[in-house]
């Protein structure tokens, strides 16, 4: 607001502070975005009585008992451990398999390479539910049912194509002459790939790993179908917790908050690469 405008506004009888419209939009946006997360945190810090009996914008009777339940009860915290195990396994397998595949697509021409590259993505065009039945029957018959590796392998079906697609974009940005110079200098392929090539596409590997992590972390249907007790993921634990006394609202909310955290942490670390990752390296 300029000096000249100020007395004029006062003369017109406007005493409310003037707020820029962009600020209003931003505040509304944040309120809509944060409301569910706030409500989850709010619930997790209340007792079940308070949640069910009254409407309160913040906890009247602040309690951390819900969180204490989760970190002490193995049926709860093992859900996190199981999830983290198969998510990590899946991310490692997906990236390890996708790296050489993406290198082949970015560097060599072979029969049907373009078609193969495109059809890699068809696995992502079907909902995971389609594959739940065959995976369940297959894993049951070979004794993989209810293991971490079972879920990790099932998720690679969706993650490897995506990782290949992302990594290929990053690899294409590296001139082929670097490969050749390395061979001329005497590097073997393996040594060149690890010592020279991987550092060059480090951000691409990071982005690919992030997308694998994200998919595997939020995917519920396959992970629930393929596990029962030993490898039960946290999301399954959350949706199955209905005791004789009804739902334990507070503990469920606390579990939800803890489930958001790993994803938020990972996003924080790779935030600068995400834009490039969404463009699949083809920026």
């Amino acid at each position, binding site marked *: 607001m300029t000096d000249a405008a100020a007395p004029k506004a006062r003369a017109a009888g406007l005493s409310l502070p003037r707020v820029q419209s962009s600020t209003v939009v931003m505040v509304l946006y944040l309120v809509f975005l944060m409301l569910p997360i706030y409500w989850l945190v709010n619930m997790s810090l209340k007792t079940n009585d308070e949640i069910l009996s009254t409407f309160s914008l913040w906890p009247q009777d602040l309690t951390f008992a819900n969180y204490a339940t989760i970190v002490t009860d193995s049926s709860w915290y093992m859900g996190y451990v199981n999830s983290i195990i198969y998510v990590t396994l899946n991310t490692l397998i997906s990236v390890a398999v996708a790296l050489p595949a993406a290198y082949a697509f970015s560097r060599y021409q072979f029969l049907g390479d373009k078609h193969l590259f495109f059809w890699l993505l068809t696995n992502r065009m079907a909902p995971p539910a389609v594959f739940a039945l065959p995976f369940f029957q297959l894993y049951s018959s070979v004794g993989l049912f209810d293991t971490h590796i079972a879920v990790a392998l099932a998720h690679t079906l969706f993650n490897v194509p995506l990782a290949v697609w992302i990594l290929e974009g990053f690899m294409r940005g590296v001139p082929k002459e670097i490969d050749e*110079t390395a061979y*001329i*200098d005497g590097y073997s392929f393996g040594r060149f790939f690890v010592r020279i090539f991987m550092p*060059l596409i480090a951000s691409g590997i990071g982005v690919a790993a992030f997308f694998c992590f994200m998919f595997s972390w939020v995917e519920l249907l396959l992970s629930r179908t393929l596990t029962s007790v030993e490898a039960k993921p946290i999301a399954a634990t959350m949706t199955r917790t209905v005791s004789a006394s009804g739902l334990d609202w507070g503990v469920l909310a606390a579990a939800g908050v803890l489930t958001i955290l790993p994803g938020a942490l990972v996003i924080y670390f790779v935030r600068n690469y995400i834009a490039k990752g969404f463009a699949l390296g083809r920026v």
Partner: protein
Amino acid sequence: MTLTLESVSKVVKGEVHIHPTDLTLEKGTMNVLLGPTLAGKTSLMRLMAGLDAPTQGRVLWEGEDVTGKRVQDRQVAMVYQQFINYPSMSVYENIASPLRLMRRPADEIDRRVHETAELMQLAPMLDRKPLELSGGQQQRCALARALVKDAGLVLLDEPLANLDYKLREELRAEIPRIFEEAGSIFVYATTEPEEALLLGGATATLWEGAVTQFGPTPRVYREPADATTARVFSDPPMNFLHVTKQDGRLMFGDGQAAPALGPLSALADGPYLAGFRPNHLELDRPAGDCLEFTATLSVTEITGSETFVHLDHHGERWVGLVHGVRQLALGSRLQVYLDPAHVYVFAESGALVAPAAYAQAA
């Protein structure tokens, strides 16, 4: 040390990239591959390096057949037009990497890296990453890596093309001096005739995948084997016009004629192709006998101290390079002059039948 190409050819998807080529490069020589873009300079280099396998023919290194040998096992170093370094390593590690792979002792590596860095004026930048350097320094880093290896065959593929003018001049002066001491076989690809002449050594001119001539650079320049070589080894390209030999005279058309002297006197009567370089075209009548033509001016380009004049002479496009700045009206009819001593005569097929008199005297 010699590198021999024995009727080496390269065909990709039915398209001929390199016609069967025979070439022998000797130890301690600078060999320039001169040709326009797409002439096959890089393709030929890749065959020499072993990055591509020839479709036919053999590559011999000191008489030994290395055609199928992996590039890692050959004594080769290469520098590209793009500045290719290992971005994740420091300049020091970049230069050291070929030596590390050869498992040289640490103190020797350290000594040689510092020597080479000194030579390439990179000593203050050894701890930096290549991408933090200027373009010229990046290319010097790549050159240092090629040099430190002490390879028998060093391939430089238009190494200065992406540098600015001043750096090019500087590096172009340094390169022959530096590589003279190394005693390797150097192959240097360029599109510029001027660069070939400055580098000296031997020149192979390339045109559409074929080596048209290979020999000492000044000789290839003065006595091009055919019209194609002359066109490639002249910037702007050589100008041509059709002539006829008759009664001991060369008839240039428009009533212009010159007596056929020296080797020309023995030629059979008939049609020939005459060629002359742009810098031999004059706008002012020189003293002595000369040919005179009338041509239409289509474009002038003034470079500061010189003027390029593009002319239309009965449908043939000529370019002249004249000293000084000339303000000429476009579309005007100009009288241009040519000393017959500067005229090369080629057969209709393109083969040289008589070099210009001035070139023989030189």
